[in-house]
């Protein structure tokens, strides 16, 4: 009988376990996590304030309930220290454990820049419910936040914080919000609406140092200006967790490398979610994770299935200015063809041959996303 071990109980680990149990009630299933195994949805972190949620109320189910629902063992606060691919065995706090199939759903970690200054060690990042709890605790006293990075998370958090009359400073190296995901006209409108809601923009700028200033922090920017704030939140991107895979001798690049069956370079070891690079694509967001979980669940229950990625647009949770982006999944030189109206922006991203390879929609036009994504070639067809 199969003995399946899943390392990680984020959206990837729990979604895979749920999809597997829809097809296979017999296999022994163990999930191992270094945290408390609470089930929650990470995308919901970036609009929790507006929705009146706290770190606690974001929990959908605790590990005990998940173990019952999934007919699985869930080992919480447990660290996996090694994987022996040949022996089909892992080493963890509970000793050596055999598996027939091992799945790495170990996610990604925020990229951290070592800034100068005696306050730099207080920079927060948020990529888990635990991180979010720390951030919300800091928000109780500190009503000013400086966010580094005006990407998806930075803009979503800025919108959510501004809905609570919290002073937000948003710093980014690029000349516009959401960088290459949006054409200029749409980025400017988003920047305007967030500014109207109290967000102070520092574009074409960067943090040089973070100094302690009494109980507050004084952030020195590249242009020499200083911003006094209470909390500095870094949101400049994620890097897949690959160390555990490298130590086990598995191929890694921008993520743990897997084929279309989500299998790594070692037999019977798979990976999915933010830690995985499927062929040449590292896509740390929800829709690819869901497609991968369904395909891998089928494969693990005996029905070998490849993962397919259609064009997968991303909804940007900025209620002040609804946005959907569908970037080209691979870096391709191209240009925007913008159509601006009072309903919003509809923009195609075209390659140099004029082929439509991506799009962006804002305002009321976001409802066209299904139709538009049908015109984009599959990312992994």
């Amino acid at each position, binding site marked *: 009988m199969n003995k399946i071990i899943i390392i990680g109980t984020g959206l990837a680990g729990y979604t895979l376990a749920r999809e597997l149990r829809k097809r296979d009630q017999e296999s022994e299933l163990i999930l191992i996590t270094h945290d408390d195994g609470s089930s929650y949805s990470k*995308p919901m972190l970036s609009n929790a304030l507006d929705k009146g949620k706290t770190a606690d109320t974001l929990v959908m189910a605790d590990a005990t309930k998940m173990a019952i629902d999934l007919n699985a063992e869930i080992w919480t606060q447990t660290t996996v220290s090694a994987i022996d691919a040949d022996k089909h065995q892992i080493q963890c706090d509970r000793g050596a454990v055999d598996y027939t199939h091992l799945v790495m759903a170990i996610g990604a970690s925020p990229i951290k820049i070592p800034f100068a200054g005696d306050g730099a060690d207080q920079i927060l990042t948020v990529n888990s419910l635990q991180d979010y709890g720390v951030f919300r605790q800091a928000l109780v006293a500190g009503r000013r936040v400086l966010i580094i990075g005006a990407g998806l998370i930075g803009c979503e958090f800025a919108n959510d914080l501004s809905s609570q009359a919290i002073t937000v400073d948003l710093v980014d190296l690029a000349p516009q919000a959401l960088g290459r995901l949006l054409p200029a006209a749409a980025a400017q409108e988003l920047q305007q609406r967030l500014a109207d809601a109290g967000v102070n923009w520092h574009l074409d700028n960067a943090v040089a140092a973070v100094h302690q200033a009494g109980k507050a922090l004084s952030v020195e920017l590249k242009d020499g200006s200083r911003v006094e704030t209470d909390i500095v939140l870094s949101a400049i991107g994620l890097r897949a967790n690959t160390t555990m895979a490298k130590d086990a001798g598995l191929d890694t690049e921008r993520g743990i490398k897997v084929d279309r069956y989500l299998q790594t370079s070692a037999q019977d070891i798979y990976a999915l979610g933010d830690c995985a690079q499927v062929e040449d694509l590292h896509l740390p967001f929800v*829709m690819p994770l869901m497609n991968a979980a369904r395909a891998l669940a089928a494969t693990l229950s005996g029905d070998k299935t490849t993962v397919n990625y259609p064009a997968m647009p991303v909804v940007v949770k900025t209620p002040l200015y609804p946005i959907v982006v569908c970037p080209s999944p691979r870096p391709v030189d191209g240009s925007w063809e913008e159509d601006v109206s009072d309903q919003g922006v509809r923009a195609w991203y075209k390659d140099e041959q004029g082929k439509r390879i991506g799009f962006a929609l804002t305002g009321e036009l976001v409802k066209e*996303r299904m139709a538009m994504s049908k015109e984009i070639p599959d990312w992994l067809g």
Partner: protein
Amino acid sequence: MKQWQCLVCGFIYDQQQGLPEEGIAPGTAWDDIPDDWLCPDCNVGKSDFDMVEI
């Protein structure tokens, strides 16, 4: 009128509006949506939605 919220990404299905661009006519009740329907924003299954009375 009943609404259903995706537990993963917060997408709201509003019975009154339906999803015309997906061929789900306005007024279509939640139970009448096919079981293999997926959330348009994140592809999670129907079973991952919660009924929200608004």
